[in-house]
């Protein structure tokens, strides 16, 4: 592998893979809808597909920096932003499926849902953060907010925690005894935990050393 240079050159083919890959779930959904193959409860299908994709892309975008640092893979860095933006897109579609498709924009009903269901508030928190981060992700905003921008971007970790908590609570069962269909949300929670661990400076240095010696 070539030695990464200090200035990161975006690899166009890598970016293309990310763009295409991120659009596949949407295209697939559109295709299934076109074919009338969204199942017997299309709203539920839409909510689940969009929610899962949003979480997956969010975790992938969070995995970029550790990947770059530990494996010394600078070429992946430019992928972080599009992955985060696509996650925000799917989160937005997820919310649209909920508010417009399922509840027909009936504000009274939607309000009732939010007041009665804590897991929705967690989702809302995650959504707000993702949308704010997406809107302020431009260079213009980066300049305007100066050092505040980096600080703001860090809240993506909070968004991930909220989203994974929302996921864990969206499943039918009991979280304390793990009786229920928790495989997927637990995988997401495990991945997030791992990403947090990888941010520990000690662990990061140790992994770097080991990998470089090999």
């Amino acid at each position: 592998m070539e030695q990464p240079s200090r200035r990161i050159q975006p690899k166009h083919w890598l970016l293309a893979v990310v763009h295409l890959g991120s659009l596949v779930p949407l295209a697939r959904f559109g295709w299934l809808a076109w074919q009338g193959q969204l199942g017997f409860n299309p709203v539920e299908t839409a909510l689940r597909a969009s929610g899962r994709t949003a979480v997956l892309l969010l975790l992938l975008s969070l995995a970029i920096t550790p990947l770059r640092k530990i494996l010394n893979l600078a070429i992946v860095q430019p992928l972080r932003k599009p992955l985060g933006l696509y996650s925000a897109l799917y989160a937005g579609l997820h919310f649209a499926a909920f508010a417009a498709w399922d509840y027909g924009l009936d504000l009274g009903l939607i309000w009732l849902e939010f007041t009665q269901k804590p897991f929705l508030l967690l989702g809302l928190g995650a959504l707000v953060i993702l949308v704010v981060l997406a809107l302020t992700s431009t260079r213009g905003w980066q300049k305007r907010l100066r050092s505040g921008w980096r600080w703001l971007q860090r809240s993506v970790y909070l968004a991930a925690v909220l989203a994974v908590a929302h996921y864990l609570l969206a499943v039918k069962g009991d979280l304390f005894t793990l009786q229920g269909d928790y495989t997927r949300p637990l995988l997401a929670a495990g991945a997030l935990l791992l990403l947090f661990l990888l941010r520990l400076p000690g662990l990061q240095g140790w992994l770097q050393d080991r990998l470089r010696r090999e």
Partner: protein
Amino acid sequence: MKDQDYRSVPVSPDEVTPQDVYLSRRKFLKGMGLAGLGALLASCAPAISTGTEGLVATEDLREALTSYEAITNYVNFYEFTTNKEGVAELARDFVTEPWSVEVGGLVENPRSFSLEELRTNFAQEERIYRMRCVEGWSMVIPWLGFPLHKLLAEVKPTGAARYVSFESALVPEQMNAASSGMFPFPYLEGLRLDEAQHDLTLLATGLYGETLPPQNGAPIRLVVPWKYGFKSGKSLVRITLVENQPPTLWNTIAPQEYGFYANVNPAVSHPRWSQATERRMGESGRRETLLMNGYAEEVMPLYAGMDLKVNY
């Protein structure tokens, strides 16, 4: 005759086709000398026919029937898989014959009923019921079966019996997810004795005039139309009369979310799904959820003096 306050939601015009087809079949069955067409028309009234002379439409909801395809392909049956649309395929080869249901506990005549006996000793009637899932969706299903109280009358509950416990089959070799450890199977459910003896409480052996397919709980299942769907245990192997409130699967796992009573009640919310409104399969938009799933008039007397928010 009582009036029909709770169930006067008209059929939506885009949904008449399956019902049309089905109604014509029902008329055909009636025409076979089972009951007059007049009885069918009169059955717009809610009174439950206790007819014993075969297939009798006991209730006409004037709401479109959910399609057979939706009823048989969108089901929760966690012993097979938690994917509602994957059950039908996985349950296809589930062996339901021979089968017997053990009825015992606090009864004078404990005994086992073979499937044959359950199908022939008890007149099978048709009951068109709403079915409301705790997940916030609903269907209208034409069941075939007989009221549970007829079975209970044969075994004669003793004076000490106050509850009924229902146990579903657990056949790990045939049920993919039964031993995954995700849930403490066998699936258990329970009713208070008076709920079990209510005429609406059905033991179903078929739907749409045909034998119950495995994914819907073949060969025999419980149907308690005023409670969330999970109360209606599938593929029953044991019915036991007991003195104290029996353990039930969902209530054991998450008592704060799944009460023992689990009566459909738009005023009692659930942490995940809306109980104020529901999504009727095959319809767009949501409709309001009815108290006791529209059977309030029939079943509210069972809960006189009880706080339904506490006993949810």
